[in-house]
């Protein structure tokens, strides 16, 4: 669990400085990394021969994640500081690595374990990366970056339903205890990354 004080520190920093290009760039680095991984995972749905209920939900997720990435890339005021990309890459490396493992050949379409891992990792990201609590009360609600951030935050809760239903209901030969352990491990991974990210957000 992320401590409330960690959110408070990040919000205090943003409250003092505003959504500077550095802060916007940090946030977009995090969300882009998370959403690119999930997008890559769901891109496989295009190769499926038909669109039944769950495939439609996956297509929606693919489309919405693409929309989120577009919104972020078009509304972010990018920082020119190259050190941010380097430090961000270090903090976000566990996520990048995890999605890389999911997408290893033969890929999730042909590897049920990788498919389950991708759903579990997507759940952890959509459930635990929550930026609404770092947005100060006094920000301009019509600022395009804030609008995009809030749209993405709200949409994450809805998209999460796909992962919830799949984790609970999809037929799998993986025993329940193993599945729960997988889900917990991914949640801890995402919590660790997000905790580090919030500390980074609160720092210079």
């Amino acid at each position, binding site marked *: 669990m992320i401590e409330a004080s960690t959110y408070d520190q990040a919000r205090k920093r943003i409250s003092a400085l505003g959504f500077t290009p550095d802060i916007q760039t940090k946030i977009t680095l995090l969300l882009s990394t998370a959403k690119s991984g999930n997008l890559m995972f769901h891109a496989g749905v295009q190769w499926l021969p038909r669109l039944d209920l769950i495939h439609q939900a996956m297509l929606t997720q693919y489309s919405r994640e693409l929309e989120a990435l577009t919104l972020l890339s078009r509304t972010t005021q990018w920082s020119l500081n190259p050190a941010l990309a380097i430090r961000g890459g270090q903090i976000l490396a566990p996520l990048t690595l995890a999605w890389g493992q999911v997408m290893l050949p033969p890929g999730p379409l042909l590897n049920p374990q990788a498919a389950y891992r991708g759903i579990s990792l997507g759940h952890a990201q959509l459930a635990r990366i929550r930026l609404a609590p770092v947005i100060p009360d006094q920000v301009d609600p019509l600022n395009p970056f804030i609008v995009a951030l809030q749209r993405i935050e709200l949409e994450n809760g809805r998209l999460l339903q796909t992962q919830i239903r799949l*984790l609970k209901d999809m037929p799998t030969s993986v025993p329940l205890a193993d599945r729960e352990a997988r889900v917990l491990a991914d*949640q801890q991974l995402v919590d660790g990354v997000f905790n580090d990210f919030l500390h980074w957000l609160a720092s210079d």
Partner: protein
Amino acid sequence: MPTIQCGKHQVHYELIGDTGRPVITFLNGLTQNASLWRGYADYFVPRGYAVLAYDLLGQGRSSKPIIELKLALHADMLDQLLDRLAITQTHLVAISFGGVIALDFAIRHGQRLRSLTVMSTFAELTPHLEFFGAVMLLGLTEVGLPYLQHLLYPLNMSSAWIAAHQEQIPDMKRAGFIGNDGYALQNLMESFVAFTPLTPDLPRIRVPTLIMNGEFDFFTPRECHDLIRRQISNSRLLLIQHAYHAFTLEYPAVTMRQLEVFLGQVSDGSWRGDQSVWVAADDPGAPNPWLPCAGDWRRAIQIGTAPAPVADAVPTHS
């Protein structure tokens, strides 16, 4: 606050006071956590009790199962937690979602109870409550956690409380958003899909039982509590004046005083569980804390016995 391993789950709890004293265990509502009972610990520990509160599975810092969470697991988890803390018997006080768990616990683990207090709760999903639950779940899944938080304020609190706390509510909501996970709340709510009504088993509850219901609780209305009262012979129903659903937060002084009276009666043997209905005094310092309830407590209006003159009863329109 310490964490203890119960089976494959972690439970985050707070135990204040020596467990050699009578223990009061508090169970949270759906979006609450253990820290909300600290004021109750401040009140009851100096009065000779120990107070145990904990985050239910799916809440706060306790484990938040994602794949599977059966409703019965909560009562079994409480049984394990009491074992781990070497608490043989406890007074159990529970609100709303926690009240359902408490009733289940009292039915299946009743030997562990000294008394039971259930507040703002239900033993079965009435059609009204089933619709409410569906709306809450739909809001959570289709709109999101902030929607559910918005919905719960007017259900839980009176207009007076909301008006008095307008400025603090955004911070309260933010804290609730950080402390709660939408998927975990969803899991708790979906555990009711397979919920079997507890009503037929309520007569098995033999311990002294206090049922508390807010005067204006339209979330879990009077019919839910009256159903419990009718099924538990060793019970009384106590109505909290002016209160909505979350009166433990809106009227803590009144609630603590009423609990103290009840627990005192249980301890000194003066408790009489006769299924009678009472009204809590507004003033927690009132010498007579329980007032008799006149009229039909299941109704929201009081009807006079003497018929009004025809001329007064028929409205005139000019």
